[in-house]
């Protein structure tokens, strides 16, 4: 693929971002990260309160990239088979079986949104994680493939009752965890409340130009990005130092206020996590019109790709978001390149 094609795709990607930014206002950071995840072909964990626009955001993206969009709500009685099929009594009085959300769009499934994933049981997590890892599912004596699927899962960090925390091994399958917070700009807040165009989500999503990207070409193009965006030796050393710092932050002089750093980290970032970070950094470099990854590209995705992978001592888990943010900021400040 020529450089001009890379530029063309970049223009499409920026166009998609622009379209979504008009629908979901005040979320430039998360929108850039989701765009990055789409082109890096990584699954995303969304973190945020209810009603902040997560669903709208995903529907807007799905409309822009095309393909099928499916959504399921996590509940305590949700079972794995509920993702695959559901049964009902038809008008003829006979039992019928219909495809569940995973199978409904077939291979054209491009976005699967699992709302409040931490309300579902570990069995459901298990199935979903297999689908995320292998993008395939065995059901009805057949193997079903979802080559273009990206999973977006949401978890409510505030409510902890009747929830099942996602284990670290499961969190590690997600490329990013993106916080979605209410914009604090007064004009945006006022528009969200008083501008009637934000009241009808269906109509709002319809305003996004459809099929800006071709969902079934994203996998191939993602490989091209990864192969064309260079990473210098200096950058590799820098990434390696960042990785080591997530394991032994004290070695790099990183401290978090009110935390015993000797006890804080049980496990740093995983090799899979670091490779996902670099995939995302390459996409970020491409989105910024660069031919090689810079430390700035890593910084742009560092929190989103690493924070949820860190395993802390249980005593610090309740403050995980705050501690992870401070620790990772400390690491970026402490590790120099070159």
């Amino acid at each position, binding site marked *: 693929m020529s450089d001009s094609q890379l530029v063309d795709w970049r223009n499409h990607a920026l166009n998609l971002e622009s379209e979504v930014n008009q629908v979901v206002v005040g979320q430039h950071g998360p929108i850039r990260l989701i765009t990055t995840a789409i082109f890096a072909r990584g699954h995303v964990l969304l973190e945020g309160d209810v009603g902040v626009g997560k669903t709208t955001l995903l529907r807007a993206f799905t409309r822009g990239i095309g393909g099928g969009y499916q959504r399921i709500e996590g509940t305590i009685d949700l079972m794995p088979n509920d993702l695959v099929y559901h049964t009902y009594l038809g008008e003829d009085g006979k039992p019928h079986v219909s495809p569940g959300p995973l199978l409904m769009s077939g291979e054209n499934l491009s976005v699967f949104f699992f709302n409040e994933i931490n309300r579902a049981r570990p069995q459901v997590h298990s199935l979903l994680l297999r689908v995320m890892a292998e993008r395939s599912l065995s059901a009805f004596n057949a193997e079903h493939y979802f080559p273009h699927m990206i999973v977006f899962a949401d978890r409510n960090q505030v409510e902890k009752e009747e929830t099942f925390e996602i284990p670290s091994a499961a969190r590690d399958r997600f490329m990013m965890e993106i916080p979605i917070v209410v914009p604090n700009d007064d004009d945006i807040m006022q528009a969200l409340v008083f501008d009637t165009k934000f009241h009808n989500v269906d109509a709002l999503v319809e305003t996004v130009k459809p099929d800006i990207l071709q969902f079934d070409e994203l996998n191939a193009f993602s490989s091209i990005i990864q192969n064309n965006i*260079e990473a210098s030796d*200096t950058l590799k050393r820098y990434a390696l130092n960042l990785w080591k710092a997530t394991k032994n932050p004290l070695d790099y002089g990183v401290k978090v206020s009110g935390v015993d750093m000797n006890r804080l980290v049980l496990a740093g970032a995983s090799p899979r996590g670091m490779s996902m970070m670099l995939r995302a950094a390459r996409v970020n470099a491409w989105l910024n019109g660069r031919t*090689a*990854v810079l430390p*700035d590209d890593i910084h742009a995705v560092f929190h989103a790709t690493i924070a949820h992978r860190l395993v802390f001592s249980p005593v610090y888990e309740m403050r995980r978001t705050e501690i992870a943010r401070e620790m990772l900021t400390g690491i970026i400040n*402490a590790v120099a390149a*070159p």
Partner: protein
Amino acid sequence: MLQRLILTFLLSCVAPYCLALDSQTLPDVKAGIVHMTTKDPDKRVGYSIGDIVEREVILTIKAPYKLIETSLPIVGYEKRYRGKPIGVDLQAIAHSKQEYKDYTTHKIKLNYQIFVSTVVAKNIALGPEYLNLINTQDKKDIVKYRIPILNVSTSPLAIFGQVKVENNMSPFLPPPLLSAEKEYVRLKIALGILTLSLLALVYIVGQRAWLPRMGGRFATAYRAIKKLPDDDAGIKQAISNLHLAFNQTAGIAIFNDNLEDFLKQHPDFLPLKTEIQQFFGLSRQIYFEPDAVHGAGDAPMPWLLHFVRRCRDCERGLLPSPVMGGV
């Protein structure tokens, strides 16, 4: 030579006669003929039986007078006062002379030994000694010269009865002092080491700089970059040194994405904002992205050297020097 032989002959003739003379009955030598200096011991008190007192007498005798050497004090002669021995013997005598055309110099070293033990401190006189001189031009002209006495005090070996120390203290001399020369040398060495240590301490406390502003991050980087060669490795090292200076100045690692924060916190560097951005562009090209474009010119090393000097000026709170033409 002939004169010397005649003089020797004359002296040998008069010597027995001289010995027979009583020196004290001879007339005194005229003033100005003999000049005498003595080297007396510092210690004048506290002698006891067996002690030796050394005295050196240097006589300068003008011609035509010569010393009759047989008149020198005789070893073993017991000193007497009014016929009674006073307990002082001449234990040894050393005599040397140096003859010149107009005068002769005699060095006479006299060792007196104390042979008296008293129960209280007591003065004792060493001498006087009488020397005879002969006029070599008139052999009948024989005169005497008196070496004055030397007073010292003897002390008892043991104190008997109650003694008031104050009464026994000598008013003449302080107690002899110990030699402190070695201690002075040691003191000087210690002061030297102390001075060097203080200088080293100042150097260390001053962050390895002799002058207050010499140890700045960019000043250090400037000195290091000046020594680097103008090749790829040198340019890489220079950029690395500059990054280190930025990081140390900010206290955190500085990248493009937090450059604005750095400038807000260090407004002294604001005049160099464009050049700092160019530097980061150059760093990006050298270390990360060979195709990257920067505005640092085609000769990176001179540009870096000038840039670090301007950064050093900013660091010192000075207005940076204007941009050099052609760099």
